[in-house]
C-alpha cells in the first residue's frame, strides 16, 4: 500500500516539479527608440546573460548604420560624387538589398531620400527646435539628388559610390528590421525558441508566449493612441508598421511627416498607416515604407514579388478607410 502511495506522489511531484517558464525582458534606448527583447526561459541567469550579449550587437549595428561621423553610412555620404568607399560586407549587403527592394517597389522605397530627410528636418528630429518648411527650390534641388539608380555597387571591391555630389543615403527605413533579424539569430543560436523582439514598434515573434499561446500583438490605431486597429495572434513572423503619427510636425494646421515620396520630394499624403507581416523583418521594414508611398492601389504589384500580409489605412476627407490582405483574417485574435 505504501509503495502505491509513494508511486502516486512521485508521479504527481514529477509532473509539477519542472521549473516554471518565465518571461525575462530587457529594454534599452538604442537607434533613437526603445528596444525591448522578451524571452521565455526557465533559467534567469542565462536569459539575462544572452539579453546583454544581444544588446551589445544592437549597439554595434546602431554605430555602423547610424548618423554618427564614424558610421560607414556617413563615410559613403561624405564621399558622394568624389570616390567609391569600400565598406564591410554587412553594409554592402544591406545596401544591395535596399536597391533590390527599390526595383521591386518601382522606386517607392529608396534609401537616397537622405537629402530630403535633411532639408525637412528629420535627420536630427529629436534635436530640432523649430521646424520650417523647406522652399520649393530647395525641394527641387534636393530631388535632383534622389534616385537609387545613382548608387553604384562594385561587388568585387565591395565598394559603394554615390555618383552625385551631396547625395545622401539613409538606411533608417531598413536598418531596424535588419537589427531585429540579427537579434533573432543570436537568440536562436542560444537555443531560445520563444521570444519577442520589439524595436520601436517593429516586432518579430518566435514560438509562443509564457502561457504557451501565440504572441498577441496589437496594431496601433493611427489617430487614437488609446485604441488598437486590431489584435493579432502571431508566431514566427515579423510585423512592422509605418505611420504618419510618430515623427511629424505641424505648420499652419498641416501635418508633415517623415515618409517621403521619392518622386515629389514631399511627405506622402493620403495614407496614414501601413502594417506589413512577413517572415523577414528587413523586408517588412522596407516594404512598410514602400507600400506607404505606393498606396493601396499598387500594393498588388508588390505582392507578386514578396509574400506578405498587409493593413493599409487611408484618410479621405477626415474619414479613415482600411484595406487588408485576404490572408490577414488567419491572424486575427478570436474574441
Amino acid at each position, binding site marked *: 500500500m505504501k509503495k502505491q502511495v509513494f508511486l502516486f506522489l*512521485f508521479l504527481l511531484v514529477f509532473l509539477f516539479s519542472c521549473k516554471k517558464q518565465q518571461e525575462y525582458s530587457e529594454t534599452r534606448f538604442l537607434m533613437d527608440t526603445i528596444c525591448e527583447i522578451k524571452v521565455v526561459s526557465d533559467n534567469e541567469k542565462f536569459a539575462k546573460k544572452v539579453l546583454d550579449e544581444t544588446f551589445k550587437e544592437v549597439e554595434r549595428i546602431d554605430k555602423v548604420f547610424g548618423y554618427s561621423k564614424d558610421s560607414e553610412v556617413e563615410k559613403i555620404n561624405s564621399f558622394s560624387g568624389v570616390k567609391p568607399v569600400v565598406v564591410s560586407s554587412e553594409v554592402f549587403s544591406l545596401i544591395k538589398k535596399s536597391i533590390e527592394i527599390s526595383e521591386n517597389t518601382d522606386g517607392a522605397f529608396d534609401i537616397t531620400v537622405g537629402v530630403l530627410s535633411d532639408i525637412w528636418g528629420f535627420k536630427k528630429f529629436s534635436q530640432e527646435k523649430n521646424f520650417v518648411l523647406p522652399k520649393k527650390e530647395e525641394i527641387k534641388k534636393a530631388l535632383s539628388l534622389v534616385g537609387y539608380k545613382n548608387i553604384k555597387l562594385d561587388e568585387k571591391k565591395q565598394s559603394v559610390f554615390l555618383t552625385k555630389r551631396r547625395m545622401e543615403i539613409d538606411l533608417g527605413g531598413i536598418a531596424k528590421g535588419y537589427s531585429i533579424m540579427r537579434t533573432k539569430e543570436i537568440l536562436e543560436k542560444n537555443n531560445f525558441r520563444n521570444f519577442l523582439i520589439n524595436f520601436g514598434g517593429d516586432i518579430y515573434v518566435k514560438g509562443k508566449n509564457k502561457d504557451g499561446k501565440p504572441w498577441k500583438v496589437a496594431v496601433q490605431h493611427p489617430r487614437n493612441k488609446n485604441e488598437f486597429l486590431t489584435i493579432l495572434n502571431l508566431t514566427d513572423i515579423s510585423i512592422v508598421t509605418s505611420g504618419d503619427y510618430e515623427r511629424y510636425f505641424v505648420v499652419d494646421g498641416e501635418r508633415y511627416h517623415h515618409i517621403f515620396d521619392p518622386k515629389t520630394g514631399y511627405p506622402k499624403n493620403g495614407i496614414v498607416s501601413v502594417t506589413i507581416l512577413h517572415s523577414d523583418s528587413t523586408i517588412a521594414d522596407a516594404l512598410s515604407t514602400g507600400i506607404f508611398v505606393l498606396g493601396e492601389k499598387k500594393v498588388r504589384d508588390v505582392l507578386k514579388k514578396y509574400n506578405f500580409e498587409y493593413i493599409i489605412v487611408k484618410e479621405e476627407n477626415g474619414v479613415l478607410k482600411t484595406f487588408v490582405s485576404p490572408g490577414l483574417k488567419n491572424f486575427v485574435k478570436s474574441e
Partner: protein
Amino acid sequence: MEVRKNFVYKKTIFDYILIFFLLILASYSFQLLFYSFKNDNYVVEVYQDNKIVYRDFLSKDNLIHLRNAVVEVKNNKVRMKESSCPYKFCVNTGWIDKPYKQIVCVPNKIYVKISGKTTQGVDGVSY
C-alpha cells in the same frame, strides 16, 4: 477485536524519498503563490541613459526629478510632467496606465514603462 501491541514502525528508504518529494511539492506551491501576488500590481520603471533610476508600484503617487525632466506618478497613471527637450513629444504623450504604452524622451535619453500583466493580454504593440 484484535489489538496490536508493541507495534514498532521501521522507516524504509521509501519514507525518506516520500518526504523529499513532498518538500519539493510544497516549495513549488509556495513559488506559485509568490509569483501570483508579484504580478498583480503594475510597476513603473523610469530609465535615463539606459540605467534604471526609479522603480515602484504605479499605485504609489510620486514626483521623480531627473536630469532635465520631471516624471509624475498619480492616481495609478504616469506622465512626463516637464522636460527640457525642444519639441516636448514626451510631455504631449500625456498619462499612460497600461504596460504596452511608453513615454520616450530622446534628447534626454529617458523612457518610462509600466511592467505587469496586460489587460487584453497584449504582448506588444506595432506602431
